[in-house]
C-alpha cells in the first residue's frame, strides 16, 4: 500500500558487525506492552495508599467565598479533606512557569488548589483523601463551596479589552507582548506590503485542542518511612524537570526527591508539565507519611490537563508579480488560559521563527505576539507546539496567494523554495537551516499523488452544479527540532538548557548499559538507542539494555519533547560510545602491546593492522577493565563514559504533504480520498519507528483539520469534555497514508539525524485545509473555519452563496 511498506524484518537479532542502523528492527518494548505485562502508573499496587480526589470549580470565574469540608469528613473511609486555603502554607513556591518570555511578563501566582478565586471550570478548589477512589469521589459531593460567580472570559479579543479582569492583582489580562525583532529591517515590511504586486491579508483561528493521550495522568507518591526520601511515580514525559520542580515548590532537598515514570501511555506535550495533583500527592504523602495516589478520569483529563493551540493569527503576505515573497507580517493573539503552566508563554515563540516556511524570505518580516489570560483550561505545548500554528499560517496563506494570482499552489511554492545548494542557509530570522531539499520532497509527493492527473480529474469533476467537489491540498514545512542549543534558549529567556546526557557502560560480561536522560512514552527509545550502541560496538542490539525514566538510575537529563530525543539524546549516546571505545582502545593497545593508532575496531573486535593474529574482542577488554589486573598506568578500572551534549544548532526536518479530498456540498461532509506524506528527518535509525511517528502525527494533524475542537459555552463550560463530544477520530474515520522517501542528513550531528516526533502533525492540518478550500474555491468560498466539520463547511458555502447572490 505504501512505498516504504516493505515488511519489517522479522529477525530482530540482526547480525553484529553491523549495518544495524537503518534496519526496520522490531521493537524491544512490544512484548511487555502486548501481553499486559507493562505496568502503567495506575496499575501499581500500593498497599495502604490513600486516594486523592480533587473537587473542581464548576464556574469559569468565581470568588470562593467559603469551603466547608466537614460533610466529606463525616463519610466512612474519608481520611482528610482540604481547601486551597488549608494548604496555602504548604507550598515553598507557586506552580512553576519556566519560560518568562519577557522581563515584564505577567504571571499570576497560583497554587495546586485555588485560593480566593477559581479561574476556569476544572480549577481545583478542594481535595479529599480516602481509602478508595470511589469513596473519595463520593466525598467530593459532600464538600460545600460557596462561590460568587463572575463573568467568564472566553473570547480572546474580549480578554484583550480588559473589560473583565481575571487576575485582579495584575490589572490586565495581557500576559506579554513579544516581538521578533530583526533590527535592520525597520519599515521594510510595511514598504513591501505597500509596494508589492500581490498582498493577501488573512485571519486564521487555531482552535483549542485537547491532547487526549490515551492514558490519563496518574500519580503515586511514596514517602520513605525514615529519612524523608520521597519517590514520585508519575505518568509524565519529564521526570527530570519534575524532580527539580517538586523539590523547589515543596522545599524538599533535591537529593531526597526521586521521580520514576512507569510505562507512560502517550503524552503529546500534555505530560510535559508540573501539575497540581503531583504536588498535592507529594505534599500530602510527605506530611502524612503514607503513600498517596491519584488517577485522573477522562473528563478531568479533558478539563484539567493542559490544552493546546488556541491562537488568532493575522497574517499579511506580500509577493511580487512573479509570486516571489517580498514581505510578511504576523500578529498573534495567544490564548494562555487561566494560568501560565510550565512553558505556556513560550509556545508562540517556538513558532515565531517558522512563519517563513521553506521559502526564501527577505528580512521584511514583522512578527509580534500578544498573549492573554482567559477563564479556560491553561494551554501549553501540544505536539508541535507553536510550529504547526506557524506552518498552518504560512501554508494556508500561500494557497490564498496562489488563488489570488491564479497560479498553481505547488508552482507558487516552487518559485519560493530555498534551493538545495543554499544550505546551510541563514534565514531571515538569523537562524541557520542545516540542510534541505524541498524540490525533491515535493517531487516525490507529486509523483505519489499523481498530482497532474488529480488536477485533471478535478477539472472534470468540479463542474457547475456538481455536489461532490474534489480538492487538492499541498503543504510544505520546515520544523525547528532538536530542542535545543542552550544559548539560543537563553536568548529566548527560557529558564533551562537544551542539552542531553548519556552514560554508556560495558559490563564485565560485555553486555552494554545505556543510560539516557530522555523519557520515552511510545517512541521506542529502548529499541533505537540499543541500535545506536550496537552499531558502535558491533554487538547485537539484544545485548544492549537502555535505562531511563528513573532519576535515581538516570540522574541527568532533560526528557522527551520537541522532537529532541534522537538529535540531542541519541547523538549523546553515540558520543558516549565513542568515548568508551577510546578507552577500550587504550586497554587493547596495552594488552596487545601495540600502538593505539595501529588498532582497528570492527565487528566487536580490536585488531592490530599488519598482524592478523593479534586481535582482542570487546568482551575480553570489558573483563580486563573489570578485574583491573593489567590496565595502563593511571587508567581508571571501568569501561564507562558519560557525555552531556549541547547541540550547536536546532535540527531542521522538512517535508511535503499532499492530499485529495471530496466535499459533499449538500451536507458539508469532507472525505479524505488520498494522503501522501514525504517527511525528511535526515538519517533514520529505525525506519519502522520513523514511519509510525509520521502516521500518528499525520492523523493528529488531520484530526485538527477535520474533527477536534475544545468548545466552551459563553459561561466557560467545556462542552467537549468527553470522547463522545471531543472527536478523536477512530480507524474508520481516517484514510491510510502513503509515505514517500527523502533523506537529507543533518550536517550538525554525527548521526545526521533530525528528529521526527512532530513532523506529521505539522504538515497535515494545512494540507487538509488547503484541500478543503481548494474544493470549494469555485463556489466563492474564501476559507473554512477549522475544524472543517460538516457544519463549518456548510456554513461557509451558505455564506458564499449569500455573498454571490447579493
Amino acid at each position: 500500500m505504501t512505498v516504504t511498506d516493505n515488511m519489517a524484518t522479522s529477525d530482530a537479532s540482526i547480525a553484529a558487525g553491523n549495518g544495524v542502523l537503518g534496519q526496520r528492527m522490531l521493537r524491544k518494548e512490544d512484548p511487555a506492552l502486548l501481553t499486559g505485562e507493562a505496568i502503567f502508573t495506575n496499575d501499581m499496587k500500593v498497599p495502604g495508599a490513600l486516594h486523592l480526589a480533587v473537587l473542581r470549580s464548576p464556574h469559569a470565574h468565581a470568588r470562593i467565598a467559603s469551603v466547608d469540608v466537614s460533610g466529606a469528613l463525616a463519610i466512612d473511609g474519608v481520611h482528610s479533606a482540604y481547601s486551597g486555603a488549608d494548604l496555602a502554607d504548604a507550598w515553598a513556591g507557586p506552580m512553576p512557569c519556566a519560560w518568562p518570555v519577557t522581563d515584564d511578563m505577567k504571571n499570576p501566582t497560583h497554587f495546586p488548589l485555588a485560593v480566593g478565586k477559581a479561574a476556569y471550570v476544572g480549577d481545583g478548589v478542594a481535595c479529599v483523601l480516602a481509602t478508595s477512589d470511589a469513596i473519595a469521589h463520593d466525598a467530593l459531593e459532600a464538600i460545600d463551596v460557596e462561590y460568587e460567580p463572575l463573568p467568564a472570559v472566553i473570547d480572546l479579543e474580549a480578554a484583550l479589552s480588559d473589560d473583565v479582569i481575571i487576575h485582579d492583582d495584575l490589572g490586565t489580562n495581557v500576559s506579554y507582548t513579544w516581538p521578533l525583532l530583526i533590527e535592520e529591517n525597520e519599515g521594510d515590511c510595511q514598504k513591501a506590503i505597500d509596494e508589492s504586486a500581490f498582498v493577501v491579508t488573512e485571519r486564521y483561528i487555531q482552535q483549542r485542542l485537547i491532547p487526549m493521550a490515551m492514558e490519563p495522568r496518574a500519580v503515586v507518591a511514596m514517602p520513605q518511612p525514615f529519612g524523608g526520601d520521597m519517590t514520585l511515580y508519575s505518568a509524565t514525559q519529564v521526570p527530570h524537570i519534575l524532580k527539580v520542580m517538586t523539590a523547589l515548590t515543596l522545599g524538599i532537598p533535591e537529593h531526597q526527591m526521586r521521580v520514576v515514570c512507569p510505562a507512560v501511555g502517550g503524552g503529546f506535550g500534555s505530560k510535559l508539565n508540573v501539575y497540581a495533583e503531583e504536588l498535592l500527592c507529594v505534599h500530602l504523602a510527605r506530611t502524612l507519611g503514607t503513600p498517596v495516589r491519584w488517577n485522573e478520569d477522562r473528563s478531568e483529563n479533558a478539563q484539567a490537563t493542559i490544552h493546546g493551540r488556541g491562537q488568532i493569527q493575522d497574517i499579511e503576505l506580500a509577493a511580487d508579480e512573479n509570486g516571489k515573497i517580498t514581505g510578511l507580517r504576523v500578529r498573534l493573539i495567544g490564548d494562555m488560559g487561566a494560568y501560565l503552566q510550565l512553558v505556556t508563554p513560550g509556545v508562540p515563540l517556538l513558532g515565531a521563527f517558522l512563519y517563513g516556511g521553506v521559502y526564501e524570505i527577505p528580512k521584511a518580516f514583522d512578527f509580534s505576539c500578544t498573549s492573554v489570560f482567559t477563564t479556560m483550561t491553561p494551554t501549553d505545548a501540544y505536539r508541535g507546539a507553536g510550529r504547526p500554528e506557524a506552518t498552518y499560517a504560512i501554508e494556508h496563506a500561500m494557497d490564498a496567494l496562489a488563488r489570488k494570482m491564479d497560479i498553481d499552489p505547488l508552482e507558487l511554492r516552487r518559485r519560493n523554495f530555498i534551493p538545495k545548494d543554499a544550505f546551510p542557509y541563514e534565514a531571515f530570522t538569523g537562524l541557520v537551516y542545516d540542510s534541505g531539499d524541498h524540490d525533491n520532497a515535493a517531487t516525490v509527493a507529486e509523483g505519489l499523488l499523481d498530482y497532474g492527473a488529480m488536477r485533471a480529474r478535478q477539472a472534470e469533476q468540479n463542474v457547475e452544479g456538481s455536489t461532490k467537489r474534489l480538492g487538492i491540498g499541498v503543504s510544505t514545512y520546515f520544523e525547528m527540532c532538536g530542542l535545543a542549543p542552550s544559548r539560543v534558549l537563553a536568548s529566548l529567556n527560557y529558564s533551562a538548557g537544551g542539552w542531553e546526557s548519556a552514560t554508556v557502560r560495558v559490563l564485565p560480561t560485555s553486555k552494554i548499559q545505556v543510560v539516557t536522560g530522555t523519557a520515552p512514552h511510545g517512541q521506542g527509545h529502548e529499541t533505537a538507542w540499543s541500535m545506536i550502541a550496537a552499531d558502535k560496538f558491533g554487538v547485537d542490539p539484544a545485548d544492549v539494555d537502555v535505562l531511563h525514566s528513573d532519576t535515581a538510575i538516570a540522574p541527568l537529563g532533560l526528557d522527551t519533547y520537541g522532537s529532541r530525543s534522537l538529535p540531542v539524546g541519541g547523538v549523546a549516546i553515540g558520543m558516549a560510545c565513542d568515548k568508551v571505545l577510546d578507552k577500550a582502545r587504550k586497554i587493547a593497545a596495552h594488552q596487545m602491546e601495540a600502538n593505539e593508532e595501529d588498532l582497528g575496531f570492527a565487528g566487536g573486535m580490536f585488531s592490530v593492522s599488519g598482524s592478523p593474529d593479534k586481535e582482542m574482542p570487546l568482551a575480553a577488554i570489558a573483563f580486563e577493565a573489570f578485574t583491573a589486573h593489567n590496565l595502563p598506568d593511571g587508567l581508571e578500572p571501568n569501561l564507562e563514559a558519560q557525555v552531556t551534549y549541547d547541540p550547536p544548532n536546532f535540527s531542521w526536518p522538512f517535508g511535503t504533504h499532499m492530499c485529495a479530498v471530496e466535499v459533499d456540498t449538500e451536507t458539508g461532509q469532507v472525505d479524505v480520498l488520498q494522503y501522501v506524506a514525504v517527511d525528511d528527518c535526515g538519517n533514520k535509525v529505525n525506519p519502522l519507528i520513523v514511519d509510525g511517528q509520521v502516521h500518528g502525527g499525520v492523523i493528529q494533524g488531520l484530526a485538527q483539520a477535520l474533527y477536534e475542537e475544545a468548545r466552551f459555552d459563553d459561561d466557560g463550560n467545556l462542552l467537549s469534555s468527553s470522547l463522545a463530544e471531543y472527536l478523536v477520530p477512530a480507524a474508520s474515520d481516517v484514510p491510510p497514508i502513503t509515505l514517500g522517501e527523502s533523506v537529507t542528513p543533518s550536517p550538525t550531528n554525527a548521526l545526521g539525524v533530525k528528529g521526527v516526533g512532530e513532523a506529521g502533525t505539522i504538515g497535515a492540518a494545512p494540507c487538509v485545509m488547503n484541500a478543503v478550500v481548494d474544493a470549494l474555491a469555485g463556489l466563492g468560498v474564501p476559507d473554512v473555519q477549522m475544524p472543517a466539520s460538516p457544519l463549518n463547511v456548510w456554513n461557509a458555502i451558505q455564506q458564499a452563496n449569500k455573498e454571490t447572490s447579493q
Partner: protein
Amino acid sequence: MIPAQFDYVRAESAEEAISLVGQHGDESKFIAGGHSLLPLMKLRLAQPSVLIDIGRLTDLSYIREEGDQIAIGALTRHMDVENSTLLTEHAPLLAHAAGHVGDPQVRHRGTIGGSIAHADPASDLPATTLAMGATYVAQGPNGRREIPAADFYKSFLESDLAADEMLVEIRVPKMTGAGWSFQKFNRRAQDWAIVGVAAWRSNGSSGVGLVNMGSVPILASSVSAALSGGASVSDAAEQATAESDPQSDLNASVEYRKHLAKVLTRRALEQASE
C-alpha cells in the same frame, strides 16, 4: 467517572424483574446492555439505588416470524438484529439500522429493548421502528399490553412505559420486497446521528422516521402524505421538517439540521424508490 453507590440484583425471569421494580420503586432501574444507563451513572447524571439486571433473560432474546409480523425479544442484542437472516429477508431496514448503532462493542452489548425503552430521539432504532409502524409489547404486574410505536414516545427520554413495566417484545410488520433506506449522518462512524432518516416505500405507501430531529423520534407523516398525493421525491423531501422541532448542539445549528433532514430524506427516498 465512578458511579454513586448502588445495589445490584439479577432477575431470573421477567416476572421477577417486574416484581423487583415493584418492591424497590422509583429508585430502581432495569439494566439490559447498560450502554445507555452506565454512561449516565458514571457521570452521576443517573443515580439509581438498585439495578435490576435483566441482561440474562435469554428467553427474551429471539427473532421469530409471527404471521405478517416479525417479533423480536426485548433483550435481543443489536448485533443479532443486524445479522438476523429473518430480518434481512422481511425487514432489512431494521437489520441495517441496527448495524449502524454505535460501534461493535455497543452492538454486542446493547439491546433493542433498552434502546427503545430509553426513548432517546438521537438513537437509531426508535425512529426506525416508528417509521416501520412497529408495535411494542410491555409487561407489568397485571400482564401484557401492546403499544403502537406512534403512541409510545412522550417527551425527551420519556416513554409510555410505567415504572413497573418492562418492554418485552418489539413487533414489526413484514416488508418483504419493499424499497428502503437508512441514512445516518454523523462525524465519526461510532457516533450518534446528527440527523438520521429511516424510510421505506411499497405499493404507494411509505414511512419516514427521523433521528435527532426533536425531543422524541419523529414520524415524518407529511412526507408520506406528499408522496401519496403524487409529489416527486424531492418535493416530498421538502416536507421532512414539518413535524420536527430540532435543537442546536456542537455539531449542528437548527437551520443546518433542518437542511440535513431534507437532503437525507431525499436521498433515502431516492434509494428506497430504486
